């Protein structure tokens, strides 16, 4: 009898524990890979009992998945246009919040890219140039715009290979299979890639701004953790991480 009682008490305590532990799943654009990992780690320190899962991919893919009811509680898009569309369709439970402006850079594993310019891409030693797929990856769209604005598109297009998202594009360059690529500054600044030589910051007057935005999805309407995490994005520590990864924050001017 005593055993049964103990079990009952233990079970109740366990169930209560389950009810209190909160959980969110975040869908984040691939350019956030390293920055978001740090931000989530920082958040966990202050909230060790909360469960946060982050999935990285191309913004276009997440858009499709969310329209089909994907179980994501927050959506960080590399193009603010996507969450705006979702909000219009009634799939958001928050305003669309701009969180950063992204920048694109030339990056290479084999040569010091800081000595390159976009014109160098027509050099014969760059047989393959990797960009993200302009059809659905925001960083790819901006890369195409920059090449077109520099009147280089016609010359470079035959050398282009297309990554599925911006991290996939960086991986093409990192493995040396493409000699050079146009990737997110945020990825070029992460320690794993940064020690492999410099990068060339592509002037942002050559492309439309990479304004990035996030929403809390409809599904997470009553999820307090989702709201706390959204608020944490405005925290000083979070902003410092974002700045360190080369993102320009809303309300700030381009520093570089």
């Amino acid at each position, binding site marked *: 009898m005593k055993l049964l009682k103990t079990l009952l008490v233990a079970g109740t305590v366990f169930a209560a524990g389950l009810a209190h532990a909160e959980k969110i799943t975040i869908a984040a654009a691939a350019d956030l890979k390293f920055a978001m990992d740090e931000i989530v780690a920082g958040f966990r320190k202050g909230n060790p009992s909360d469960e946060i899962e982050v999935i990285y991919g191309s913004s*276009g893919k997440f858009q*499709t998945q969310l329209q089909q009811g994907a179980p994501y509680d927050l959506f960080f898009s590399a193009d603010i246009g996507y969450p705006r569309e979702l909000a219009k369709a009634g799939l958001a439970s928050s305003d669309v919040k701009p969180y950063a402006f992204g920048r694109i850079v030339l990056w290479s594993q084999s040569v010091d890219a800081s000595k390159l310019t976009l014109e160098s891409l027509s050099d014969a030693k760059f047989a393959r140039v990797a960009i993200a797929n302009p059809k659905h990856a925001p960083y790819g769209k901006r890369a195409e715009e920059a090449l077109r604005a520099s009147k280089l598109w016609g010359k470079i297009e035959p050398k282009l290979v297309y*990554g599925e998202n911006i991290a996939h594009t960086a991986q093409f360059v990192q493995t040396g*299979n493409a000699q050079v690529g146009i990737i997110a500054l945020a990825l070029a600044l992460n320690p794993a890639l940064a020690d492999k030589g410099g990068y060339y910051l592509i002037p942002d007057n050559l492309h439309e701004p990479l304004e990035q935005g996030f929403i809390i999805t409809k599904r997470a309407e009553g999820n307090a953790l989702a709201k706390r995490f959204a608020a944490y994005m405005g925290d000083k520590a979070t902003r410092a991480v974002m700045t360190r990864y080369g993102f320009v924050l809303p309300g700030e001017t381009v520093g570089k």
Partner: protein
Amino acid sequence: MFLTDADLQAIWLTVKLAGIVTLILFVVGTPVAWWLAHTRSKWKGPIGAVVALPLVLPPSVLGFYLLLAMGPHGPVGQFTAWLGVHPLPFTFWGLVLASVFYSFPFMVQPVQNAFEAIGDRPLEVAATLRASPLDTFFSVALPLALPGFLTAGILTFAHTVGEFGVVLMIGGNIPGVTRVASVQIYDHVEALEYMDAHRLAGVMLVFSFIVLLALYAWRPSPKKGA
């Protein structure tokens, strides 16, 4: 036109890739199948397992290894550099090589089963009639194993058409070179072009059904008795 030019290009590329891979595997896979069917070597188990690996391995494993192996620092990459030819990733022939690995068991296993079903007796009879081993193979074994070859050819072709993960990882998604139908559909979906995705996906669905129908309905019935 029902399909866009880009879609037609992707379909043609897919058919070309699957056709070439099937032809190559007929040549490369048959001796391996023959050896596996007749050997008593202790290596039969390990080699058979290696042949079957792509059935089990996730395409991402194959794609990852191939990308590194064919890249400038990998063994295949160094070999192509030594030959003075273009590195294989992001090329059509890179896809061909990857698909040969990826579809290998679909060629070898049905052919091996067909060879094993023939047994030793017809071959021994041919030998007593002084047929050379090569003659025996082409005049006796090959005709008897024909249904197995047909199955193997259709399965290899169909499986190569269905490839996606490996192509995405080593292809670089270049129109007319590495952008096959499965990748084109993926791009349509990600770009929210559902109508385009529907058209091409529908074509793939009908195609796959017809291939399998052909395989099940018209497969020559096995020869009865000897």
